[in-house]
């Protein structure tokens, strides 16, 4: 996985440029019951103009990973190791003060709940202009002009008058657009979107996703999309990293991972979706529930729910290793072969034949 990006043909570098490379990221949370590891050895890469989805159920560490990337972790959380290389700089090695320079020009983040993410006592114009005032030293008046431009860019009607409105005067969808505008204000190379549409209705969700796609194309941004929704991943993302109990258990291009999952958890998730099942028919489901963070078994994290569990799974935690491309792998495209698939399972090959 690591070398794949460097072996790309020169003509294709723009689309394949690795903007963000996360290696062995670990995050600890200090609790009353001791320190727990919420994110454990997470690896992934995000490329310019592409969307990487971090997929997982609640408590799997996907939002914690996003916060670690953005450097906005809660005080009880510590970065316990790993690298976050953004355009050649390891953010994990910087002091919080140094990291501030990156927030905005290099990295933007969109949160799930726009109402709590916006400050209720400032107008949206003030909040949108803040980035320009801090990073470009613009005056309040100049920043307001920029704020209006931004509002136009994200499709907010009548920006000249709306710039003086407060967040509560906007609908949920419009608030989310404002939040996205703040994140892309300084044309960052990396946009982190943490469940950006979970609180919205489906018709508005479609609008927001369309906007994110448009902005990604315009700015050739790398997007890290954090979601629990398999269908959103299938429609919006180029590649996916499936997380379970703080670990990446499978990664690769979405079309390959979803058509030919190599980790029993990914397979189980895909089978839990009621599509292509007769109405009222029994759905396949994953028995049990994810382990508590302070109670993660020493072997494979998925052992308690896995149908294929063997002795080795309890004894030894499988590493995230490359798996062979499947027969469905389509090499006929003009693009060079995608960076390979990886799965953390002792029996990922057997799963293919099952």
């Amino acid at each position, binding site marked *: 996985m690591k070398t794949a990006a460097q072996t790309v043909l020169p003509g294709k570098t723009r689309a394949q440029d690795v903007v963000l490379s996360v290696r062995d990221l670990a995050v600890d949370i200090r609790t009353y019951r001791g320190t727990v590891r919420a994110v454990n050895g997470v690896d992934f890469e995000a490329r310019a103009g592409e969307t990487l989805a971090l997929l997982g*159920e609640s408590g799997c560490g996907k939002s914690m990973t996003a916060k670690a990337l953005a450097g906005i972790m809660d005080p009880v959380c510590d970065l316990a190791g790993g690298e976050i290389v953004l355009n050649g700089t390891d953010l994990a090695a910087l002091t919080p003060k140094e990291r501030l320079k990156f927030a905005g020009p290099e990295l933007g983040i969109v949160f799930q709940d726009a109402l709590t993410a916006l400050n209720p006592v400032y107008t949206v114009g003030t909040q949108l202009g803040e980035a320009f005032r801090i990073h470009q030293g613009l005056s309040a008046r100049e920043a307001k002009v920029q704020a209006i431009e931004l509002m136009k860019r994200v499709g907010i009607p009548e920006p000249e008058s709306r710039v003086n409105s407060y967040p509560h005067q906007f609908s949920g969808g419009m608030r989310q657009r404002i939040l996205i505008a703040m994140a892309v204000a300084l044309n960052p190379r990396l946009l982190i979107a943490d469940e950006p549409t979970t609180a919205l209705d*489906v018709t508005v969700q479609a609008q927001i996703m369309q906007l994110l796609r448009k902005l990604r194309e315009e700015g050739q941004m790398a997007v890290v999309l954090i979601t629990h929704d398999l269908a959103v991943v*299938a429609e919006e993302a180029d590649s996916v990293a499936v997380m379970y109990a703080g670990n990446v258990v499978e990664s690769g291009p979405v*079309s390959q991972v*979803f058509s030919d999952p190599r980790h029993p958890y990914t397979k189980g998730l895909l089978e839990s979706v009621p599509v292509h099942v007769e109405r009222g028919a029994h759905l396949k489901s994953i028995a049990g*529930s994810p382990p508590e963070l302070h109670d993660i078994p020493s072997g494979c994290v998925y052992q308690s729910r896995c149908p294929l569990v063997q002795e080795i799974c309890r004894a030894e935690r499988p590493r995230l290793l490359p798996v062979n491309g499947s027969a469905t792998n389509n090499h006929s495209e003009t693009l060079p072969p995608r960076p390979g698939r990886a799965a953390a399972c002792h029996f990922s090959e057997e799963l293919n034949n099952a």
Partner: protein
Amino acid sequence: MPEPLLQIDGLCKTFHVAKSASGNTRLKALDGISLTVGRGETLGLVGESGCGKSTLARTLMMLETPDEGTVTFEGTNPFGLRGKELLSWRRRVQMVFQDPFASLNARMSAGDIVSEPWATHRSLYPSPRERQARVGELLQMVGLRPSDARKSPQEFSGGQRQRIGIARALALNPDVIILDEPVSALDLSVQAQVLNLLNDIQQDLGVSYIFISHDLTVVRHVADRVAVMYLGRIIETGNTEEVFDHPRHPYTAALMSASPKLDVTGATRDRIVLKGELPSPLDPPSGCRFRTRCWKAQDICADAAPEPRVTAADDGALHLAECHFPLETIKGLTPATTTAG
């Protein structure tokens, strides 16, 4: 269609609000809702937030009194009942709530929660021994252990809590269970478990479900019939396959098209992205309520509210859509699919 158990006719509910931007103080949450629910059937109720789904559910639970219209349950109007008759009616319609973390009292044990309805309906299981046995039975029915009765809600996961909520709804042996987004707070792997459980219960007990959800994939899987709501009205209703495969109302088509699909064949599909957002129910548009976001809207849509019309009756079942220009087939939409927001 199965024998109608519950019939709703022209139901209206208006709320009075203190102040709104337009100065209008009357919020019409339900505006002439008509529906039937058959015995042992699942009716899916679909719509965006603020469309009146929950007000309808609350009205059916008799938590709200309708301003107009009738509810008929096996030939009687529950709003005319008093005393013992009302009590016995309430037993027959129960509800499961969306948030399994908010809907269980943290100070009660699982057993107390499940048996609490019997404190009101004393005649059902009069002796403590019977109650205890029944709690065990109910917990087993929803896939928990009888010994779990002593545990408190905090000791359960989200999926297990929702199972307790279902057991509580089943405690009074109801005929209708209103499921208000029963799986939307649950993780995907757990969601499938709960959907399977609900299906098994319906097979065993023959109970009817009114299944409220915004997740069309789930509704398609569970519902026999679907009703699509928009700003207090049911704009389309019919058999699930019929409505999903051949939506006649533009809103239904847009809703289906907007919901993401788990399809990895890579085929790019035409997507209808609606303009704007749901108008405020305080100031609904004149005529057809959907016209402000509809790509087929003409002058007549602003002037006259469309009557529900039968758009397909191939298999004898009614498929109703409230639209002046119902869609012929979904393929006919293609030219208009690029209307961007």
